[in-house]
C-alpha cells in the first residue's frame, strides 16, 4: 500500500520555505495522510472521528449561543427563551447544542466500550487510555455545568444535588462547595462561574484530545484482532482509506443526530427544565441527564453519604487502572471466549444501572442497585484480573492480513510476543 509517499515532500518553493520554519504540513501529512492504519478496522473505529466532529460541533454552536445567552440568575431562563423564539435559527442552535451533548456521550460510550472489548487500553496504549479517561471526566464536568445554564428547575436542583455531593468530601468538602457556590447556596455567582468554566473546559478538552491523538500515533491503532501491524500489507494509509470511512460514518451519525434535533428535540431533556428555577420548590423527582444515570444509581445504592460519593468517583476512577487490572495477554475479546460473556454482562449491568438511576430510590430498586453496583466493581476488581490467569484464549491469527484473508490462526506458531496467548489452564 505505498502509492503514497510516507514522508512529506514540499513541492513549491514557498512550501519549502515555510516547512523549514514551521513543519506543520509534514506533521499533518504523517499524522493524517501517510499514517498507517490497520486494514481490518470495523466501523466501531470511526467513533474517534465522530467524537472529534461532535466536539467541534459543540464548540461552534456554543460560541454562537453565548452571543445571546445571559449568565445571570434573573435573566438566564429568559435569554434561553429569547434564543428559542426570537433569534434567527436560535431554536436550531440550542437544540443542536443540547442534543449534541447527548450525542457526544452516546459516541463516547460506544468508543469506550469499543476500547474495553478490543483491549485497546493494554500496553503500549496505557497513557492513551488514561488520557481518554481524563477527557471523559472533563466532558462530564462540562456537560453538568452546561445543564445548569438554562436555570430551569432541573438545572438548579441538579446543581444543588451535585454540589452537595462534594460537601461530603472530608476536610476540604465545605471549602470546595463554597468556592463553587460563591455564596451560601446555589445562586447567581454559581451560575456565573459555571458559565465561565463551561466555556473554558471544552478548550481544555481540545488540548487533551491533541495529547490523546498524539499518544495514539506512537503505537498506532489497535484493531479487531489485537495483533499489531507487522508489515506494510497489514496496513493502509490513513488518507484516503480511513478518511473516507470516517467521513461516511460521521454523516450517518449526523442523520441520527438530526432525527433527535428536528423531530424529538426534548426527548432526552426534562420537562421540569422548562420551569424557571425556584429554590423553594423541589421537583418531585430529580434525575440527572441520562449519561450520568449509571453513576447516579451507584451514588444512591450506598446508604452512607460519603460512601456513596466515594463509590461514584471510584466507578469512574477504576477505568484509569484498567491497563493493570486486566491480566490477560490477549487484547481482543474476539479471542477470549470467557471474557466475551463477562463483557456483555458488564454492558447489561451498566444499562441496568442507568435504568435504576432514573427510578425512585425505594423498595426493590435499591436492592437491585446495590447488586448491580457490586457487580460493576467485581467485574473490574475481581473478574478482570482473575480471568487473565484462568482463561484459555483462542488461537490468534499470525497477522492482520491473515485474518482478513480468512487464514485461520494457530496453524503456525503464534508470533508477536505481545499478543501471544499464554497457555495456562
Amino acid at each position, binding site marked *: 500500500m505505498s502509492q503514497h509517499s510516507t514522508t512529506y515532500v514540499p513541492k513549491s518553493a514557498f512550501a519549502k520555505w515555510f516547512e523549514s520554519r514551521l513543519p506543520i504540513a509534514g506533521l499533518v501529512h504523517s499524522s493524517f495522510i501517510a499514517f498507517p492504519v490497520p486494514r481490518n478496522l470495523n466501523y466501531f473505529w470511526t467513533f474517534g472521528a465522530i467524537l472529534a466532529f461532535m466536539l467541534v460541533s459543540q464548540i461552534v454552536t456554543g460560541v454562537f449561543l453565548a452571543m445571546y445567552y445571559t449568565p445571570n440568575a434573573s435573566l438566564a431562563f429568559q435569554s434561553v427563551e429569547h434564543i428559542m423564539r426570537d433569534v434567527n435559527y436560535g*431554536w*436550531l442552535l440550542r437544540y443542536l447544542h443540547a442534543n449534541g451533548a447527548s450525542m457526544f456521550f452516546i459516541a463516547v460510550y460506544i468508543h469506550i466500550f469499543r476500547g474495553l472489548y478490543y483491549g485497546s487500553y493494554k500496553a503500549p496504549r496505557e497513557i492513551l487510555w488514561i488520557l481518554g479517561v481524563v477527557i471523559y471526566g472533563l466532558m462530564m464536568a462540562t456537560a453538568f455545568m452546561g445543564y445548569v445554564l438554562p436555570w430551569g428547575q432541573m438545572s438548579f436542583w441538579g446543581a444543588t444535588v451535585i454540589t452537595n455531593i462534594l460537601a461530603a468530601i472530608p476536610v476540604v468538602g465545605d471549602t470546595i462547595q463554597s468556592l463553587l457556590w460563591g455564596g451560601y447556596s446555589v445562586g447567581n455567582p454559581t451560575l456565573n462561574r459555571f458559565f465561565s468554566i463551561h466555556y473554558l473546559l471544552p478548550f481544555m478538552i481540545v488540548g487533551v484530545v491533541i495529547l490523546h491523538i498524539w499518544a495514539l500515533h506512537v503505537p498506532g491503532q489497535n484493531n479487531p484482532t489485537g495483533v499489531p501491524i507487522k508489515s506494510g500489507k497489514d496496513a493502509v494509509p490513513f488518507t484516503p482509506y480511513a478518511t*473516507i470511512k470516517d467521513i461516511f460514518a460521521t*454523516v450517518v451519525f449526523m442523520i441520527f443526530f438530526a432525527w433527535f434535533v*428536528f423531530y424529538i428535540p426534548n426527548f432526552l431533556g426534562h420537562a421540569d427544565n422548562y420551569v424557571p428555577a425556584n429554590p423553594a420548590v423541589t421537583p*418531585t423527582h430529580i434525575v440527572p441527564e441520562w449519561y450520568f444515570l449509571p453513576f447516579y444509581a451507584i451514588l444512591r445504592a450506598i446508604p452512607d453519604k460519603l460512601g456513596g460519593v466515594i463509590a461514584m468517583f471510584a466507578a469512574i476512577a477504576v477505568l484509569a487502572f484498567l491497563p493493570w487490572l486486566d491480566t490477560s495477554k490477549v487484547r481482543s475479546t474476539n479471542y477470549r471466549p470467557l471474557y466475551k460473556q463477562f463483557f456483555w454482562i458488564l454492558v447489561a449491568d451498566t444499562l441496568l444501572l442507568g435504568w435504576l438511576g432514573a427510578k425512585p430510590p425505594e423498595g426493590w430498586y435499591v436492592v437491585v442497585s446495590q447488586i448491580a453496583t457490586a457487580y460493576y466493581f467485581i467485574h473490574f476488581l475481581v473478574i478482570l484480573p482473575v480471568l487473565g490467569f484462568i482463561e484459555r484464549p483462542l488461537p490468534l491469527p499470525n497477522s492482520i492480513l491473515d485474518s482478513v484473508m480468512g487464514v485461520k490462526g494457530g496453524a503456525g506458531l503464534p508470533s508477536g510476543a505481545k499478543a501471544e496467548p499464554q497457555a495456562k489452564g
Partner: protein
Amino acid sequence: MRALGNNIMMKRTLLIAAALLGLSAPAIAAEETPVPPQLKWTFHGPFGTFDRAQLQRGFKIYREVCSSCHSLSYVAFRNLSQPGGPEFSEAQVKALAAEYKVQDGPNDAGDMFERPARPADHFPAPFPNENAAAAANGGKAPPDLSLMAKARTYERGFPWFIFDMFTQFAETGPDYVHAILTGYEEPPAGFQVPTGGHFNEYYPGHVIAMPKPLSDGQVEYPKDANGQPQAPETVEQYSRDVTAFLMWTAEPHLEARKRIGFQAILFLIVLSGLLYFTKKKIWARVGHSDLTTHQA
C-alpha cells in the same frame, strides 16, 4: 434582602403555605394517577403542522378564560401573525394589541404611564408580580402558560420510551394538559378533598388548586357559512384547542423545525449514499471491500 422580602410575603400567606403543604399530602398516598389518553394532534410526526383555525380558537379560549389568572409572558402580540402560528393578519394583531394596556415610561416628567400595547409588546400579566398572583389565588401563583405544553409530562416508562424514539411521540405534554383540563370529576366516595383543592383525575395526587376552568358553551366559536360554530363548543373541544395553542406558544418554530428537519435528513441520506459508494470504490483498491473480522 431577599429573605426580608419573602418574609413579608410569608406573613401574608401563612395560611396558604400550610394549605399547600396539605394539598400535596395525598401525592404519596394516592399513587395511581391514570395515564392521560393519547390524542391525535395535527402537529405530531415528521410532517406535523398546526391547524391555524384551531390555534385561533385556542387563542380565543386563552384570552377569554385562562388569561384572567395565567400570564403568557414569553409571547408577544407580533408572534400571533408570524408564520407557523395562528397567523392572524398584521392588522388584526395591531387591533388586538391596542385593546391591552401596558406600562411604559418613565416619561419626561419621570412618571410611569399606561399606553395601548403595540404588536412588539408581550402579553401583559394579569398580576403585577408572583406574590400578588399567589395572594389572589389561594397561595399558589398560577403558572405562566408560555411553556406549559413542554414543562409538563408524564412518565412513559420502559419499554415505551424506546418506541417513542422511532414513532416520534413527543406529545406527552399536550396530552397531559388536555387531560387536566378535562379531568375534573366528582371525587370518589371516601376521598377527602382539602379546602381550596379540586379533584382532578389526572393531576398527581388528584388534588389541584385550579378550579374547573372550562364548561360547555362558555366560549363562542366563530360561525361557518351555515351559521354553525366552526367546532363543537364543548369542554373536550375547548381543551384540545387551547392545548394546541399552548403547544404553539411553547414551540413557536415547530413547523419550521420539522420542515427543515425533513430537508436536512433527506440531504444527509443522499450524501451518505454518495459517500458509501465513494468509500467502496476507494477500498476496492485494497482488494477487500468488506474487511470486518468478526469470525469468532
